[in-house]
């Protein structure tokens, strides 16, 4: 990673934040940048719901197995611990066993050797966590940890900014909106997967590319697809 790359990513994020933007798309891009900048294989972002449980809202890859692995941590794992303590949690080598037998087994099965979780903090509250997986054992060095935390902070700022733009009264409403948007996107993935006989991960790529090329907000296009008012043909 070069300083130029790093600067580019933060410029890209800042550019997004000045305008109206789709919060799920923003968080999705952020997880992709985590993978590029932090030299990890996969990144996911979990937010708290009004039941105080963590739910996945964005991931660098939409592979079902990966989403399950992120979601599994709503019960046990580094993300939950990070969420409850507000502190980063890092496991440099999952094969050394440890505190979360069920999570460790599934992570190893998926081919991951190291896992890290960084808190999304807002003043005294923790509103979620960024979750990173590596296929090679190893800790995040001090520099990567700082960059990772900066990216997690940008994710928090993105949520707050959306709240301000959309004139939502409270963070609770904004979090709920983000979670509902994510459900909406899953429904649209299902529609596209069935219509075009695609894998759900490919259906997400189709949806996102469709939103980009049409300059549409991801969640608006997803709503139109679920409502059947837009078909999103595969060949333009």
């Amino acid at each position, binding site marked *: 990673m070069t300083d130029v790359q790093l600067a580019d990513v933060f410029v890209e994020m800042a550019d997004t934040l000045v305008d109206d933007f789709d919060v799920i798309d923003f968080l999705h891009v952020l997880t992709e940048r985590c993978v590029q900048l932090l030299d990890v294989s996969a990144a996911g972002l979990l937010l*708290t*719901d*009004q*039941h*105080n*449980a963590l*739910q*996945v*809202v964005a991931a660098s890859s939409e592979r*079902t197995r990966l*989403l399950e692995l992120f*979601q599994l941590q*709503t019960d046990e794992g580094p993300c939950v611990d990070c969420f409850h303590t507000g502190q980063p949690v890092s496991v440099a080598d999952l094969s050394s066993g440890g505190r979360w037998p069920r999570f460790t087994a599934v992570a190893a099965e998926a081919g991951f050797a190291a896992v890290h979780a960084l808190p999304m903090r807002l003043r005294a509250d923790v509103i979620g966590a960024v979750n990173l997986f590596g296929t090679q054992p190893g800790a995040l060095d001090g520099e990567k940890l700082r960059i990772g935390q900066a990216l997690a902070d940008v994710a928090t700022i993105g949520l707050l900014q959306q709240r301000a733009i*959309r004139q*939502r*009264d*409270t963070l*609770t*409403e904004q979090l*709920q*909106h983000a*979670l*509902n948007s*994510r*459900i*909406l*996107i*899953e*429904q*649209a*993935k*299902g*529609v*596209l*997967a*069935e*219509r075009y006989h695609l894998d*759900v991960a490919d259906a997400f790529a189709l949806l996102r590319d469709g939103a980009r090329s049409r300059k549409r907000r991801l969640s608006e296009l*997803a*709503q139109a697809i*679920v*409502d*059947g008012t837009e078909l999103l043909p595969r060949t333009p």
Partner: protein
Amino acid sequence: MDADRRVRLMHEVVALAGGRPVAVEHVCAAVLPAVGVDGLAISVILAATPPETIYTTDQVAADLAELSITLGEGPCVDAAAGLPVFAADLGAAAVTARWPIFAPEAVRAGAGAVFALPLQVGAIRFAVMALYRGTPGRLDNGQLADALVLADTACAVLLDATVPPGRWTEHPDMRHPEIHQATGMLIIQLGVPAAAALTRLRAHAYANDRRLRDVAADVVARRLRFEPDDPQLMDR
């Protein structure tokens, strides 16, 4: 947000049901003390049919629901777009400017504040829960969180109108993305709107005594297909 919120509210709802199957009126009865409002109404808003108020606690709530439907404006109408809409002081200039006909009529009907919450699962927006206070005043954070949890509960109960007594299901959230992907797939398989697709998925799970998430996983893995069984189609 406290982790016990959901459990505490569930206990209250179940206690109000007094051994009978939990119905929407029990959820509504729990809303009043928890959220500190004087009454509420639930109106179903489906694209194919005119809005219909299915539950009201009192005459003021009924009048407010009636006003929203006949005037076509107000917080409930706006909340149907998918976001909570709050008018903490119906006499405030900004509120009157936003809903010039509804606001004064609502005050005349006896309301000081209205809080409208959409009942939704992703793209499925099927009802609005409208809470009112006789005097103006904002919801505090605890009241808002309680309102959101109970709105989710009402949502689950309404979706489960056909569930046998004694069964209790969760609000479908992102813990099981396959439920929403399968809903999307059923929209195409059955040629029905999203709300009907989710209902069919749930009905199949109950009828076969299986967990919703397991049925959904079978649909996503294409081990299970649904066929349209509309009698009109079969008669052809």
